[in-house]
Each structure stands twice: as structure tokens, then as C-alpha cells.
């Protein structure tokens, strides 16, 4: 399978380590991926500004990947959910598709619906053979306990993202177990990190962040594992304001696997 790595806007600007570790892991696993010049905003923040704008921006990225005959591999769950939803809407509504295609034409692009949108978790869990990853584990992380944070758009709406069972998912837990670490089933693993409301309703946003971290601490987690830049930034950046100091390490799933594979120094 051939992928176009979709980094979105947050990762290159504020979380370059996610890009580095994801590329490292994908290369190690022999995944055929490339970056496409011209990939831009997925359309996510435009969803409450103007639906057409959001869809046009999504479609632009879909069209760029389609031109290269590659599926989109997103590291961000908000990008993933947005692109997947847009694809469904555009694919299922011919009149909408024509309208979007008009906008694309001005930039010399076309979209026929041949491209698939996948999140990193989907690629790791479904497209690749988990056994092959397990074989590569050279440094089992047996000494650490990891709580999971799924991130909303990895699971919901399940009719769109179709990654795992939305009420009882296993993807993250299985990947963590694979690294040799102990995976903790924490109560709030399916809750939102709060990021979507940051900047508009900080009280609610930070309440979610606080509860999330408190919950993981209650389960004596060493790390809170995430697979989305928004979640990572949200859960990492406000600990000082909420608890007075950094109380919990948040870790990207790619970093965790890289450590187990001996590609990265263990914590």
C-alpha cells in the first residue's frame, strides 16, 4: 500500500518530534510513504466557519493524494476525522461533488473519490501485520505502565471513521501491550482532551484536561499515550497551570513503539 503522509498544521509548527518519530517508525516498518507538496489545512477549523470552505480545503488534499495515486496517512485525528467525513459527503452527493470540483478546477485539480483516508493507528493496526512489529521488539518496555487516551476522532463517529469499536476499542491497548508495557484501562480513556474548546471556552476545555490527567494518575500511570497532536499539546501544555507542575508524561504512540523497537532511547 502506498501512502501520502499528511502532517496537517500543528505537527510541523508545534510538534515536530511527532513527525520525526512517525517517519522513523514507518521507515523501519517498510511502509511506502511520501510527502506531497501542496498539502494544506484539512478543513477542520473551518467546519464552524463555512462548510463549503472546509470541504474545498479537504477536497484539495484528497485530490492531491489522488493525483499521486496514494492514500492519505494522517498523524492527526482531527485531520483524519475531517478528511474522512468530507470524503464521505463529497462521494455521496453528486451535486456537492460538482460544486467542489468547480473550485478544484481553478487550481488544476480533480477529484474522483479513489483515495482512502487512514489514521496512523489504522495503518499500524490493520494494514500492517502486528506480528511483524512484535518480532522487531528488541527492548520490551516491561517496566512501565501506560494509560491510553484514544482521541475522539479515532473512534467517533464510527460510521465515518470505522477504525475500531467506539465503545470498547482495543487498538491502543494492543499496540501498547505489543511494546511490552503494561496497558492500563483507565476510566476516561474515551473522553475528549478538551482541545477543541481551547481558546473559546477554556474553563470547559481545561476541566476535561484536568480530569483526564487526574484519572490517569489515579491509575498510577507512568505515561499517558496519545496519537494526535491536538491531544498531545493540550494534555502536555496545561499541567503547570492546572497542577502547579508537570505531573504526568504524555507520550506519542510512535515514540513508545520506537523505544520498544530500540530505535529511540527509552525514557
Amino acid at each position: 500500500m502506498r501512502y501520502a503522509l499528511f502532517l496537517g498544521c500543528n505537527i510541523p509548527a508545534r510538534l515536530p518530534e511527532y513527525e520525526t518519530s512517525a517517519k522513523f517508525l514507518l521507515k523501519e516498518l517498510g511502509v511506502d510513504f511520501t510527502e506531497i507538496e501542496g498539502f494544506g489545512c484539512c478543513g477542520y477549523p473551518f467546519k464552524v466557519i463555512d462548510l463549503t470552505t472546509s470541504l474545498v480545503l479537504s477536497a484539495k488534499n484528497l485530490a492531491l493524494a489522488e493525483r499521486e495515486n496514494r492514500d492519505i496517512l494522517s498523524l492527526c485525528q482531527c485531520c483524519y476525522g475531517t478528511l474522512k467525513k468530507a470524503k464521505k459527503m463529497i462521494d455521496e452527493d453528486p451535486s456537492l461533488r460538482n460544486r467542489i470540483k468547480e473550485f478544484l478546477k481553478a487550481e488544476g485539480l480533480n477529484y474522483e473519490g479513489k483515495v482512502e483516508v487512514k489514521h496512523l493507528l489504522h495503518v499500524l493496526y490493520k494494514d500492517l501485520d502486528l506480528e511483524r512489529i512484535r518480532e522487531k521488539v528488541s527492548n520490551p518496555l516491561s517496566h512501565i505502565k501506560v494509560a491510553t487516551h484514544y482521541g475522539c476522532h479515532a473512534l467517533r463517529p464510527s460510521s465515518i471513521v470505522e477504525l475500531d469499536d467506539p465503545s470498547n476499542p482495543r487498538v491502543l491497548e494492543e499496540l501498547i501491550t505489543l511494546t511490552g508495557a503494561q496497558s492500563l484501562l483507565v476510566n476516561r480513556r474515551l473522553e475528549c482532551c478538551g482541545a477543541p474548546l481551547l481558546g473559546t471556552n477554556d474553563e470547559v476545555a481545561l476541566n476535561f484536561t484536568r480530569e483526564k490527567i487526574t484519572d490517569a494518575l489515579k491509575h498510577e500511570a507512568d505515561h499517558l499515550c496519545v496519537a494526535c497532536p491536538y491531544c498531545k499539546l493540550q494534555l502536555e501544555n496545561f499541567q503547570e497551570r492546572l497542577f502547579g507542575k508537570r505531573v504526568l508524561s504524555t507520550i506519542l504512540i510512535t515514540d513508545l513503539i520506537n523505544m520498544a523497537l530500540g530505535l529511540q532511547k527509552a525514557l
Partner: protein
Amino acid sequence: MLGALALVAFFVFLGGLVFKVSSWFRCSLRREREGFKRFVLGFSSLGKALFSPKIGIILKVLILNGILQRRTLKESPYRWLMHVLIYWAFVLLIITHALGKLLFEGYVSTALPYVFLRDLFGSMVLVGLGMAIWRRIRKTPPLRTSRMDLYALIAVLIIVFSGFLLKGAKIISYKNYLRMIDQYASLGSEEESKALEAYWVKRMGLVSLREVEESLVAKGEEIHQFQCAPCHTNSRWAFVSYGLSRALVPLASGFERVNFTEKLWWVHIAICLIALAILPFTKFLHLISVPLSLVINALWDPKRSHPLNLKTKQMIELDACVHCGSCTLKCAVLGAERVLGNIRILPSEKIEPLKRLVSKRGLSQRELEGILQGVYLCTNCLRCTVSCPSGINLQELWFEAREALFERGLSEPALLSPFSFYRGLRAEELGEGYERPILEIKGKLYRRFGLKDSVLRIPEERGFELYERSLMGCFACQTCTNVCPVVSQYERPEEVLGFLPHQIMRLCLLGFKEAVYGSEMLLSCLTCYKCQEACPQGVTVTDILMGLKMEALKAVKEERDEIRFVSGV
């Protein structure tokens, strides 16, 4: 005369430059200016950097990014070639031609190497200009040409072309020839003068009013070698001008009648001097502001640099933008400007209004709202900053501009969207000014749609094309509200959130859409999709909430439009 004029032009230029530099301290995006403090601080910081090991960084940046244009090369080899052709060759023209007499002993404009170099550099500029014009005609889609871009292209074009034309006209000018003979040559006989003239007509491109004899050329060459050659290399060395002069031959007598060469010389000089005099107020200021911006940004340390210096830096940066469009080509939201009809969403189109914002000229209310939306609909992906050949920290400029516009009392519905994530990450730096604009736009929404004032009236149309079908399945079982993690935060959620999800669905179904626009629930929805996932009837609850929020935000924006229209601003 020329010297005096040049001095006048130079002093006008200096005065303009002082004015421009002072504006870097006098003006600011934010309300507090503190010009004098910034002036002292700016120069002392610069002085300290110059006399410290940092001088190494400064020189490196100036050579690699300034002279060698590495950042431009990284963006596009075509543009690099185009720009260095114009930039290097024009600078060399200034050195070897305009300032030749001052800089080189024994400088003679009609002898080698100067006569050749002038045409060489001039033609390089023309090739570069051709590439620049072609780029602008071809319009890599989002590239826009402003009046200043046109001025810069036309000014250089006229300067170089008038130079070539002048040299071409001089080559054929008989009057010019006679004047030179009169002043410098000592010709013994009429035959000698005929011979020299024959040589000049046949070999140097002169157009004589009388017939010359081929047989005299050899003798003429002897006289030429002795009398003229020290100052006059064969005019064919001026390869462009010589070619041009062949095309001008039929016009020779007409030129002589109107004293063309003399007049054109004045035109050429006047344009050059005027361009110099007004340089600080034109795009050519980038010759000074871009190296400055490159150096300052290379030395800049966001943690340690003084916040007052930031204001000064940003004023220099506004002047360092050459409107090349690199940022726009890389912009993550490129395309949104077409759908939303606001070119200020494009980074390269934000600079001009921001310049006016900080100057006395100001912006109209409509322009202010356009630029505010422009700086707000930015995902802060940093690509504009990374790509800017002038090294401008554009993202930081948008960030400051946002706050500056909020400070002026403007509010923007997009504040209530995920575009605010980055602003939220930096809330602590913003201090008191952080909450105010958020509360303001929320207040606007509540005032317009709040439950207290709104009358529940049945709207004429129900329009909910996208989701209506799924909504029809709602039987108000409250599952959406029960699973909502936001609702469950509160003991009496309806007091904080207004209508709850199931009520919103119900009201929508009944057609009371506007009534829910003012519900805090819409603004507090995390879009975590739990409700939609749980709905036993498959209602796309989250999507509907998001759709309603979008409509509400649009309505607030439109309302401002209406007010503006009525008041005629």
C-alpha cells in the same frame, strides 16, 4: 549642475530614509508605542550585537541570505535567477557606471572595460526583468501584482532601457561626433577630418550627413588610433546599444533636429535621481529593510529579546515584505480566500492593510473586518514564516495583529472556532486582554439570539438540507444529553448551557432554529461525537450542533454587515 542635482536627490533620499527609520520606532501595531524608549533600546541592542561574537552570525546572514539570496534559491531557482540577475547586475551598474567617475581612476565610459560591462549588466537586468514580468503575466495562481510591484518593474525597465537608447542614439549622433572632434581632436586638414569621419561611419556606427569614401577608412583608422582610441573602444563592445543603434539609423536626422541625445540624457538622469530620492517610500526600500529583517530575525531570541524590540522588529518587517508571494504559495488555507471572498486571508495580501493600520492613513471599518478575518483564519502552521525569503516572522505578525485589532475593540466570530487553539496555548502571555474579545463576541451572540429577547416564532422556512433527514428520527429520548460529557459537568446544566442537546434537536425539528443560536450549549460543544454515536435513531447530533453553531456565527457576522450598511459607513 549634475553634481548639484545628484546631491539634492541624495539628501532627499537621506531625509526620506530618516523619516522611514523613525517610523519603525514611532509606529506600532499595538496601542502603546513608547517610541523613544524603543529607539534607545533598538540602537543599543544593535550596537551590542555588532560588537560581540554575534557579528559572525550577522556577516554570515548578510552574505548567504542577503548577497547570495539563499532563502530565495530554496523557494524557487527560477525566482532566484530572476532576482540575482536584476539585483547583482543593477548593483554592478551603479558601481561601474553611475559611480564610475567617483570610484575608478581613469574611468572613461566609452572605453573598455566600462563600455562593455555597462551593456553586459544592463542586459542581465533586462533578462531578469523579462523573467519577472513573465512570472507576473503567467500568474502562478494566487500571485497578485500591486501598484508598487508595477512601479518597481517599470522604474527599472525605464532606467535600463533609456540607458540603452541613449547609448544607441549617441553612437549614431553626428552632432555628438562633431562636438567631440571640436573638443578633443586636432585634425590638420580637411582630408584628415574626412578620413576620420569615414572610419567612424564605417566602423563605429556613426551616421554622417555627407557621403564618406571607403578608401579613406584605413587612413582614418590611423588618426583614430592616435586621437580617439584611448577613450573610444569600438562601439560594437556596447553590444546591445550598438544593435539598437542600427535600428535607429533611419531616425538619425530627426534625432539631430530635436537634440534627442541631450534630452534623453536628462530624462535618463532625472529618472535615476527621482527613483533615488523617493526610494524610501517605494518597494526599493527592501534593499535596506530586507537585510535588516534577515539579521534581526537571525539574532532574535523569543525568550530573551526585549518585548519592546518586538514592536520595532515588526515595523521593519512590514517594510521588508516585497510582495513576492512565497508565503501565499505555501499557505495552508490557500483556496479559502476564493470561497469566502476575502483576499486578506492570503498572507501576502495582509501586509499592505497592516502597513496602513499602523500608519496615519488607517483603514475603513470594512477593511478592518476584512483584515481581522484574514489574520484570524490562520492555522498557525508556520509555513509562511519558514518560506519568507526576507526572513520575516509572519506568523508572529499575524498573532500581534490579531491582538492589536481586538485592542481596537473589534471582535470576530471565528474566535469561537478551533482557530482559537493557538491563541489559547498562548493565553498566559496575553494576560488581561485574552478573555475580553471572547466575551465580547459571545455577548454579541447572546444579545442577538439570547432566550430573553427572542420570541419563539415559527420561521418561514426550515432549511436544514444536510441533516434534516436524520433529524426526523429524533423522538427526544434524551440519550444525547445523557451521554454528553459537557452536560454532565454541571449539576444544573440548563442554567449554564441553555438548551441541552435533545432540546436543541427538538426545537430544530419544530423549526425554531434561531432560538437555539444563543444557547451556550452550541459554544460549549467539544464535538467529541459521543451523542451522535449514542443516538439510537442515528441522528447526526454533533454535526447538527456544529452546523447550528456555524449558522449562528455567520448570522453574527452578517448582522454587522447590516449595521454597517444602514449607518452608511
